[in-house]
């Protein structure tokens, strides 16, 4: 894990106040140590993402937590979908076929 100043040294354009705001808003939830925050690889990759969105792609301060939360929800949804897909794959062949048929039907009815 790396400390706050090491993180800022890596992302030279990242301002300390911005970093602290992100922590306060829950965009980042680094570990806390006796001498300050500690960032692991998960945090670092999130900082990189937040920096991309804010500094490079021009997302403003108010939007960033919203977008990050949507991205988290997207990952959650994908995680749950994978779990569902695994659960379906463990069902008998007939049940799997029925689920696929049912989903296809749902798609067609939406198109009408």
């Amino acid at each position, binding site marked *: *894990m790396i400390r706050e100043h090491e993180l800022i040294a890596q992302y030279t354009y990242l301002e300390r106040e911005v970093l602290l705001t992100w922590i306060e808003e*829950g965009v980042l*939830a680094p*570990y*806390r*140590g*006796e001498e*300050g*925050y*500690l960032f692991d*690889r*998960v945090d*670092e*990759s*999130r900082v*990189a*993402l937040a920096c*991309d969105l804010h500094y*490079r*792609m*021009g997302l403003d301060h108010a939007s960033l937590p919203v977008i990050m939360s949507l*991205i*988290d*929800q*997207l*990952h*959650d*949804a*994908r*995680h*749950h979908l994978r*779990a*569902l897909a695994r659960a379906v794959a463990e069902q008998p062949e007939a049940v799997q076929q029925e689920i696929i048929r049912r989903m296809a039907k749902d798609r067609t009815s939406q198109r009408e």
Partner: protein
Amino acid sequence: MANPYETLDVAPNASQEDIRKAYRKAAKETHPDLNPGKPEAEERFKELNAAYDIVGDADKRKRYDAGEIDETGTERQPERHFYREYADADPNRRYGRREAQAGQRDHEGADFDYDIFADLFRGHGEGATFRVPPRDVRYALEINFLDAVHGTRKAVAMPDGKTLDITIPAGISDGQVLRLKEQGLPGSDGKPGDAYVEISVQPHAGFKREGSDILSKLPVSLGEALNGASVRVETVDGPVDVKVPKGAKEGTKLRLRGKGVSRGQAGGRGDQFVEIHIAPPEGADEALAQFMADWEKTHPQNPRRKGAA
């Protein structure tokens, strides 16, 4: 690598503003974290970034146009890890899936983590209200080796201004996590989450830990090893006198019962194992060399022979 203007699909005389717009448009479509299901997005995004690093910066662009730097720039791009690689990898689940409260169980008694399904199966989400869940907080605390063996109390000031009173049980091991109930941050109902303190134990110069046992090394002289001796040995409880048996061999392990680490619930303590290392004689002189030469004439020995001690 391609020409950065081509990568960004802009004319070589485009304005900085046009380049920025082109980058943002393309980045939106290819940022791996905005496209978790498209593996090919990462390569394209990296190319975009490399290109934008050069022509997105007016100074660097001038130097590129003047041929002073090539399309890779002068500095190498550091290895970049995208969040999507880690989105499912955090064992502590600090991001996302926060709505799943520990201990919340469904009617069958299984941990019901899949709130998304709970919502779907429950009906149509009517009357759902937004609430901020209590937030768990994670602390990292480093303690020294002996405190880990004996246990200790620590009042620790954390960066958010809070002071935590932490009782560290004897025998805690590196990487263990203590849960402090309701010491986290409150949610909208005022009920705080939990604090989790991950302990890392600093290594000790003289002791190594293996489960509930302590390992240490004991240098003895050749004479002490041959004739036996009583020597002072450091333990986690302080020094004790230990008998080195006559004829002790290199690597012999002496056991000091109960001088190890608490076994916790199992009760009692582990042992300390002291490994003997024979130090060659210091200040060997002509007399010793002559003695050894004579002695080896009548006691031929080849320690390189297979099976030799």
